[in-house]
């Protein structure tokens, strides 16, 4: 899958892919000896390594609490809290825990952290190292929303999903942008599937590099997609400040509900969040 992803990119001729001459001779599809520039921005501007036990650093992170409207617009089933049962920092990790418990009329609880009003930035490299949960109905995400969303409602404000994951597809993540004319089912999206591995058994780095001309999506050392203004059938709204969100949703239209085989509690472990320019 990696290779096919890269092949598509090559065909689209949008990336700076530097292949060794051996690879060029052997042919692209059978090539494993490639070099590819995954990231270029290396000046750190914000980081949370989650090294202090307890509640997450309030200078960086706030919370969405409750169920939003229609389950945060997605028919999600959980009630978000900022209780330590749902969000805590322990042993170097941010731990978001989805629990099956009746709480404030919802059948599940979990947490959604966001940097709105605390850290907002246009452009840069945004990445996090995460171990994902598993099982039908688990929907973790590492994503961004336009900072003007209160006055410029979604989808006009723009959304960049650096990583979304369905618990029932343990080897696949998606990177997506939403904007005016290309949101929800019409969003611009691409998946990335690990070969002989999965995202719930170890940590993986999920990131984007975002410039005025493109958003590049990568997992670990693999650049698997690039989205440019030419790829979106509407206004390119990724030219202003965005804030970061990390959450673990339960159920909702994107994943479907948990079933009787879904194991609870489920945890999303975040080793770090780093932003470069």
């Amino acid at each position: 899958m990696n290779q096919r992803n890269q092949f598509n990119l090559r065909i689209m001729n949008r990336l700076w892919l530097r292949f060794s001459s051996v690879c060029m001779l052997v042919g692209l599809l059978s090539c494993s000896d490639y070099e590819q520039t995954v990231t270029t921005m290396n000046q750190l501007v914000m980081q949370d390594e989650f090294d202090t036990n307890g509640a997450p650093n309030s200078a960086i992170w706030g919370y969405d609490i409750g169920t939003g409207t229609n389950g945060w617009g997605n028919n999600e089933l959980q009630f978000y809290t900022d209780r330590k049962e749902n969000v805590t920092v322990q042993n170097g990790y941010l731990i978001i825990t989805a629990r099956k418990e009746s709480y404030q009329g919802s059948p599940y609880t979990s947490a959604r952290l966001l940097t709105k009003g605390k850290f907002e930035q246009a452009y840069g490299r945004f990445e996090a190292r995460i171990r994902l949960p598993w099982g039908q109905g688990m929907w973790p995400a590492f994503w961004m929303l336009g900072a003007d969303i209160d006055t410029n409602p979604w989808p006009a404000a723009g959304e960049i999903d650096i990583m979304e994951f369905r618990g029932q597809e343990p080897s696949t993540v998606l990177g997506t942008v939403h904007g005016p004319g290309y949101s929800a089912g019409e969003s611009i999206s691409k998946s990335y599937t690990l070969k002989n591995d999965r995202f719930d058994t170890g940590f993986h780095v999920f990131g984007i590099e975002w410039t005025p001309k493109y958003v590049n999506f990568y997992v670990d050392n693999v650049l698997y997609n690039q989205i440019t203004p030419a790829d979106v059938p509407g206004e390119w709204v990724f030219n202003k400040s965005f804030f970061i969100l990390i959450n673990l949703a339960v159920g909702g239209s994107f994943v479907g509900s948990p079933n009787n085989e879904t194991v609870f509690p489920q945890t999303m472990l975040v080793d770090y969040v780093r932003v470069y320019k």
Partner: protein
Amino acid sequence: MGIKNVPAHQCWEIKASKMKNIKVISIRIVVLVFISLILSNCERNLSGDVEFARFSTNPEVFIDGFSSGLQYFPFQGSKLDAFKVDTEVRYSGSSSMRFDVPNFGDPGGAFAGAIFPDNGGRDLTDYDALTFWAKASQSATINEIGFGSDFGENKFIVTLNNMRISTAWTKYTIPIPDPSRLVVEKGLFWYAEGPENENGYSFWIDELKFEKLGTVAQPRPAINFGQDETMDTFIGTTITIPGLTQTFNLASGQNVTVSAAPSYFTFKSSNVDVARVNENGTITIVGSGTAKITAILAGVRAKGSLTINSVGTFVPAPIPTRNPANVISVFSDAYTNIPVDFYNGFFAPFQTTLGGAVNIGGENVIRYTQLNFVATEFKNPTVNLSQMTHFHVDIQIQEPINPGDFISIELGDFGPNNVFGGGDDSSGRVTFTNTALSSNTWISLDIPLAQFGLASRNNMAQIFFISDATISTLLVDNMYFYK
């Protein structure tokens, strides 16, 4: 697995334990043992070059024919020619394995079933699953399919039960519960399947091989079907822990559960003076008290446990020999019992008695603790004892008997109105004091019904045991009326 993999600390433990023995054994012998242990176990440890030869790591079982060393042995009673190599129908390559499940009543055999071993043994530690493509001539459910059966110990047998199969080629994955155990595995594949609704059919398997998928994850082993259960038993009993499974989540997002042989598990008893458990999952009761049996599989704690309450030495009550035609039985394994509502009514607020009917090592017994009084009731329907002459019961008092201790047995009759109350009930009791009782042995009581002094015995409904807390722990068996 090379010798270099032996953890260094094991050597230190050997040294330490031998050092302790120096005090009691000839120093010279101990020193020799000590040195030889170092030479045989630890010194070679330092060399990174020493490796045992591995058995064949060939992952292939049947791709387009038998892999090297593979053999075919049908089960006794199975249709011997159920298996063929099929060159017409195959998923890929030049041939597949075809299995013809017989119709009900086929004189050739009642089912299809066989093992496919490589008696040279294979090292399967590099793989995490047995995989294959399969399809059938009709939708069906294959009873048992797996690996690890070698017509020997079947030490690491794995079974996927009730595998659904359709008419479309589909890839199946049977995960290995703990690949590190399969250093020399002979049983590469086995299956057993009977007719579907008495009808035979055919299924095909192709590309049968062990694989390292890398996506077999989230192990959730279980013992005792994942249940926490408490069992009463006694010294000398052996119990085999049932319900041993391993569950994985696969790349498809599906969970798959296989039955796993006990040797994949490491069992633990919380009290080896009460119960011990061997690598076959067999528990032996060696003392009185409580022990909890748990297990781990490849470092993961198995869900479920078995808590053993051993009553210590237990001898079942004497088996009744009276003719069933002359007996109305309330509680006995020897007779058909009348319908009983309960063996403990838990009458609030004055009753302290706990317990009731239990199964101790296969024997149904009533065991009461914290006895003050307790009733067995059988009012649906009440029992007419007009033809009976005696009440029999075997009791055992599991504690020392002190002056002042007593057991009263009381019978309760509901009278002509056949319900409790109404002014026509009658009851009466017979009391046995400490001098008539002994501890930790069965006491067989045969009491003439006349001694209870009842106004009526045509609507009998209750049997009470009363000690007023003088006797706390009481076993009861073989409660019946006879003539």
